[in-house]
């Protein structure tokens, strides 16, 4: 018995001691996302953006063959937990990405990060992981949840809106979206409404909005929630008296496609637009349209960037994925051509970037879509970076 143990220990020591100079022969990516239910459009867009990047890279990440294992979290933290466990323990992935919702990200973050697997968020950017709980293995390639909301809050103030009521789902992402808005909106928040995440019938809330009569309603309702909200808002005849404002999450292609005409004239904020003029973006948008017969949304752009970030990092460490410190450094350097143009990580591994104003209107081809109108913030960081004590 004792002898066996010794041999096992020696073997283990041998594997560990071997200099991590051997390059891996493939990169395994666990892609957990919301691919069913009313918010499926978001996960599908992130996935399609990610796959398009892989196609551009010839199926490789940093010159290594990439194996992407896609799993559906059904927007259910418990399901996400179980599929993540399988990806970590059975498939032993090198990177995790794809998660749409902050509550799900927060549920699975601990086991992923504890296992020293790199978690590249291509969407959810909860404040917790930007501040106190920032982690060497966590990177967000999209934004911190508050950021996009801060931009539209700033714009609402500049527009001189006096009273605003917010409508957001009661989950970490929803709370971040409201606190971000309030941080830069200087008018009066007449009320904050929190609805159940995944709620689809807004009759009760609309009746209250009608009675309250604010200047504008700021809503943060990603996916099918936003589609239903805008449709029902218009059907209830509220669009005559109350202005709608939102962040880019509820004013992108998925919502525009489902709602149509009533979206026209909606101002929204975003860190990206499909008509941004840079080489990477032109290629991304053109090929996305060719491949999937639809315009990409901001979610798709984030999925694309996530894959490009991984590619750059794997390339930089020459495939030596076991050298975690080197991989981390390479990710921090973010040497990739983002579809947003310039891209830089802050010390908390969240982006420092520009935020723009977009307007939904008809383009020259007669399609209803977003047009880039101007810049709201330049080199904007998040509000939580000060609380982050990132381990060296």
């Amino acid at each position, binding site marked *: 018995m004792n002898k066996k143990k010794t041999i096992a220990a020696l073997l283990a020591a041998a594997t560990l001691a071997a200099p991590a100079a051997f390059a891996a022969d493939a990169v395994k990516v666990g892609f957990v996302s919301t691919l*069913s239910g009313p918010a499926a459009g978001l996960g599908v867009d992130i996935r399609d953006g990610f796959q398009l990047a892989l196609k551009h890279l010839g199926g490789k990440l940093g010159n290594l063959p990439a194996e992407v294992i896609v799993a559906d979290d059904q927007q259910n933290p418990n399901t996400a937990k179980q599929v993540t466990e399988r990806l970590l323990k059975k498939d032993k992935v090198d990177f995790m990405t794809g998660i749409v919702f902050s509550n799900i990200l927060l549920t699975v973050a601990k086991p992923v990060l504890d296992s020293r697997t790199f978690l590249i968020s291509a969407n959810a950017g909860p404040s917790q992981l930007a501040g106190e709980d920032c982690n060497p293995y966590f990177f967000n390639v999209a934004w911190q949840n508050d950021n996009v909301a801060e931009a539209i809050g700033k714009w609402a103030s500049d527009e001189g809106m006096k009273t605003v009521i917010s409508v957001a789902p009661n989950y970490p992402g929803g*709370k971040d979206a409201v606190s971000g808005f309030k941080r830069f909106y200087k008018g009066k928040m007449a009320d904050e409404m929190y609805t159940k995440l995944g709620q*689809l*019938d807004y*009759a009760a809330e609309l009746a209250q909005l009608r009675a309250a009569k604010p200047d504008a309603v700021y809503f943060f309702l990603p996916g099918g929630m936003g589609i*239903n909200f805008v449709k029902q808002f218009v059907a209830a005849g509220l669009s005559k008296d109350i202005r709608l404002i939102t962040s880019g999450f509820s004013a992108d292609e998925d919502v525009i496609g489902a709602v149509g005409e009533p979206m026209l004239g909606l101002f929204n904020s975003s860190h990206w637009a499909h008509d941004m003029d840079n080489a990477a973006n032109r290629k991304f948008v053109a090929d996305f349209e060719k491949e999937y017969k639809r315009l990409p949304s901001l979610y798709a752009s984030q999925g694309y960037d996530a894959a490009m970030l991984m590619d750059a990092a794997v390339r930089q460490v020459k495939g030596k994925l076991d050298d975690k410190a080197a991989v981390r450094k390479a990710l921090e350097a973010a040497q990739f051509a983002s579809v947003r143009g310039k891209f830089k990580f802050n010390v908390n591994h969240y982006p420092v970037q520009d935020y723009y104003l977009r307007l939904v209107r008809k383009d020259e081809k007669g399609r209803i879509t977003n047009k880039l109108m101007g810049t709201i913030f330049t080199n904007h960081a998040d509000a939580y970076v000060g609380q982050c004590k990132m381990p060296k």
Partner: protein
Amino acid sequence: MTQLILEQALNGLQFGLMLFLLAAGLTLVFGIMDMINLSHGSLYMGGAYLGAAAAQAAGSFLVGLLAAMLGMAVVGAALETLLLRRLYARDHLAQVLATFALILIANETVRMIWGPQPLPLNPPAALAGPVELFGFSYPAYRLLIIGVGLAVAAFLYLLVARTRAGMWVRAGAANREMAEALGVDVRRLFTGIFALGAALCAAAGVLLGPLLAVQVGMGENILILAFVVIVIGGIGSIRGALVGSLLVGVVDTLGRALLPTLLRAVASPEVAGHLGPALASITIYLLMAAVLFFRPQGLFPARA
């Protein structure tokens, strides 16, 4: 304030009537055949998908609605003759297992045919806007739902109270053996009831489609509410199902609308947002538990 309450009451009425469409079939199947059918919600989902697909193909909401009702009536009749009939004589546990299996099969079948993402279903363009009503605007489409729900309730009342088939149904609900002894063709009656129940489920699925989402799993959430409705109303009673539906619809809507407002006076918006909807849902189950405690057979017991 009165306007707010009026609008919320209309919303409650609309939700309650849709629940009634589901509960009507369920209560008859449960009451007459003494059969627990957990897959009733799958008929609702199937109807919604069929309706959305047909509406898209034909470019007409009405065609979608009729196609869904007809299609699900056929599916319901086939299900009853081929499968569920074998379960009437079995105990409730076997029925739970078999119909739970049907839920799994139905969900996966829909996923195989239409994929995991919800299907789009829009109300008819003419009804997409608001109408003026007692001095405020109300969505025309919700008004249509209320109208259809009331019409179906009236139709069912006439069917059950005034026709020969209705008499058989009432006889069957009150005492099945006696009805059989009196020469009622119970087998055909059961198939007919099942087909009718399935068509009503389909109608509810299509009508609620534009307000909610046509998606896999939509049946399970509403199924339990339908069960609550028929237990409150009294199993086997159409009248009970109507009263139960309206009670549940109004309590749920008013609770969801008013509780957060009231709670916000004493708690933060976030806490109110958490507590309000949950308390409203609890109220419904509290209502059911109280009804069962004081009237163990429901409000309108069908059996003498």
